[in-house]
C-alpha cells in the first residue's frame, strides 16, 4: 500500500471479513444442508453445523444421481454445463469485443444505430421472448444441440457495453502513436488494445461463464434428450417438485457440486486481475 496506516488496514480487513461472513452465510448453509439427512432438514430450526452424512450424500449424488429421475449421470451434466458455459463465455467475448472496437474506433454511417440496436437486447427480458426464440431455434433444427444451447444466449449486449466503456477510457495518444507508426487497425487491436483489456476480459469471462453455467429455463425448454441436460437445470427443477417434498440434503449436495466449477473459474482468473501484470501502464 502507498503508506502504512495500520488502522485503515485493520478496518479494511474487518469490513471485508464481515462482508464475506454475511455473503457466504447462505452458501455455508447450503453446505450444512448437504451433510444431513432429509428428516433433519424438515425440522425446525435447521441446524447451523454440518451433520454426519457428508460422505453418503455426495456418494449417492455422484453415483446414482438424485433418485432415479433427473438422474442423468452427474458427470454428463457437468460436461454439458461446461461446454455450454465455455461456449457462451468465449463466444460472447469474441463477437462483442470486435463490435465494441468497431463502434468506438471507427466513424461509419449507422454507427450509433448499430450500437443502440445491440444495446436494446438488454431491454426485453429473456422470459418474454423465450417462446418465439424456441420457434426460431426449432425452425433452424437446433433443438437438442450444443449450438441451440449456446448461440441464442450470445445475443446480448453486456460485453459490448463493457468493452465500449473500457475502450473509451484508453488514451488517444496510444492510437495516435499506432497510426503514426503506420500500424493497421487490426494490428493496433491485437498488439495494444487486447493486452490492455485483460482485466475486463477476465471479469467478463467469469461473469459470462457463470451466466451460461446457471441457465435454467432455456436448457429446460430446448432439450428433451438426457444427453444434453445441464447440471443446474437438473438441480433447479428438483427444487420445484409438486405434491412431494424435495430431498433437501441431496439437492443441496448437488447444488454444491454445481457451484464448484464457477468458483474454480473465479480462482483461476484471479491471476488476471493482479495489478502489475498489465504490460502497458496508461
Amino acid at each position: 500500500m502507498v503508506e502504512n496506516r495500520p488502522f485503515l488496514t485493520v478496518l479494511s480487513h474487518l469490513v471485508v471479513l464481515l462482508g464475506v461472513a454475511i455473503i457466504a452465510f447462505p452458501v455455508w448453509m447450503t453446505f450444512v444442508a448437504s451433510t444431513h439427512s432429509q428428516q433433519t432438514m424438515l425440522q425446525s430450526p435447521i441446524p447451523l453445523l454440518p451433520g454426519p452424512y457428508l460422505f453418503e450424500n455426495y456418494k449417492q449424488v455422484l453415483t446414482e444421481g438424485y433418485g432415479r429421475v433427473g438422474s442423468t449421470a452427474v458427470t454428463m451434466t457437468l460436461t454439458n454445463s461446461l461446454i455450454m458455459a465455455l461456449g457462451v463465455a468465449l463466444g460472447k467475448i469474441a463477437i462483442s469485443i470486435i463490435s465494441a472496437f468497431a463502434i468506438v474506433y471507427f466513424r461509419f454511417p449507422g454507427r450509433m444505430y448499430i450500437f443502440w440496436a445491440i444495446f436494446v437486447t438488454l431491454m426485453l427480458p429473456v422470459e418474454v421472448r423465450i417462446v418465439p426464440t424456441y420457434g426460431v431455434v426449432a425452425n433452424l433444427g437446433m433443438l437438442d444441440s450444443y449450438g441451440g444451447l449456446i448461440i441464442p444466449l450470445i445475443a446480448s449486449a453486456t460485453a459490448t457495453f463493457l468493452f465500449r466503456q473500457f475502450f473509451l477510457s484508453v488514451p488517444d495518444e496510444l492510437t495516435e502513436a499506432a497510426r503514426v507508426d503506420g500500424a493497421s487497425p487490426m494490428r493496433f487491436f491485437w498488439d495494444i488494445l487486447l493486452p490492455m483489456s485483460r482485466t475486463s476480459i477476465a471479469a467478463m469471462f467469469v461473469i459470462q461463464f457463470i451466466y451460461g453455467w446457471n441457465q435454467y429455463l432455456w436448457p429446460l425448454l430446448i432439450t428433451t434428450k438426457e444427453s444434453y441436460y445441464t447440471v443446474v437445470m437438473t438441480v433447479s427443477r428438483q427444487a420445484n417438485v409438486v405434491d412431494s417434498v424435495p430431498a433437501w440434503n441431496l439437492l443441496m449436495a448437488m447444488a454444491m457440486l454445481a457451484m464448484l466449477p464457477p468458483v474454480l473459474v473465479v480462482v483461476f482468473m484471479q491471476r488476471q486481475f493482479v495489478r502489475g501484470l498489465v504490460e502497458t501502464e496508461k
Partner: protein
Amino acid sequence: MEKRVTFHERWLPYLLVAPQMIITLVFFFWPSGQAIYQSVLIEDAFGGNSKFVFLDNFIHLFNDDSYFASVRLTVVFSFLVATIGLAVSLLLAVMADRVIRGATAYKAFLVWPYAVAPAVAGVLWGFLFNPSVGIVAWMLQGIGIEFNYVTNGNQALTLVVIAAVWNQISYNFLFFLAGLQSIPKSLIEAAAIDGAGPGRRFWDIIFPLLSPTGFFLLVINIIYSFFGTFGVVDALTKGGPGQATNILVYKVYNDGFRGQDLGGSSAQSVILMIVVIALTFVQFRFIERRVHY
C-alpha cells in the same frame, strides 16, 4: 461519447460488427418482434383463435389499479436494489483492494453468491428466513422481532431486496475490483507524494477514474433490478403477500406463463421495455456527461 482519433476504413467496421449483428437479428429481433406483435392480439396460448385487438390490451392495463400499484412498487424496489447493491459492493471492492494478504481468498468468497443459481438462491433465503424452520427468523425472534414474511408485506419486500442484492453483489464487486486494479499505481503514488490522504485520493482520483465502470454498473444494475430479479421473487414470495412484492417483471411472467394471457403479458413487457429504454437513454444523455473517460 466520441474518440478524437479514429481509424478510417470502409469495410472493416461492418465486418467487425457483422457476427454480433447477425446473431442479434436472428435470435433477438426476430423473436422479439413476434413477442411484441402479440401485444396487439388476444389469443389462446397455443396460437389458435387469434384476434387482432389493436390497443385493447394496453387500455385494459391503464384501467387496472393493481398494475399501477405494481409500477409504484417496482420503482421503489429498483431504487433500493440498485443503490444498496452498488454502494455495498463498492465499499467491499475498495476495502478488498487495500488488503494484500488473503486477497485471493476474499475475492473467491465474495464471488460465490453469483455462482449460486437464482432458483437455488431463492430457496436458500427462503430456508433461512422461513418463519418455522429458518435460522435467521429464529434468531430474530430471539431478539424480539416477530419475523413472518408470509403475512407481513414490508418484511417480504425487505427479504426480496436482500436476496436480490445478495445475488448481484458479486457481479458489481468483480467489476469494481477489476476497475480499481486497472488504475495505474503511479497515479495514486503521485497523489500520495503530493500529500493527499486516502479519502482525498478516493474522491479526487479513484472515483473519477472508476466512473466508466461505475456508469456501466449503474445501467446494468437498473436493468437487473427491473428484469433480473424475477427469479428471486418467484422462489420466495410469488408476488405476495397481498401485492407486496408483485413487481412488474413478475407480473409479466405470471400472466404470460402461468396464466397464459400472452396478449396481456406482451403488452406489459412492451411498456416495461419502453420505460427501461427511456431510463437508459436518460442515463446516457445526462449522467454519461459526468463520466470521466
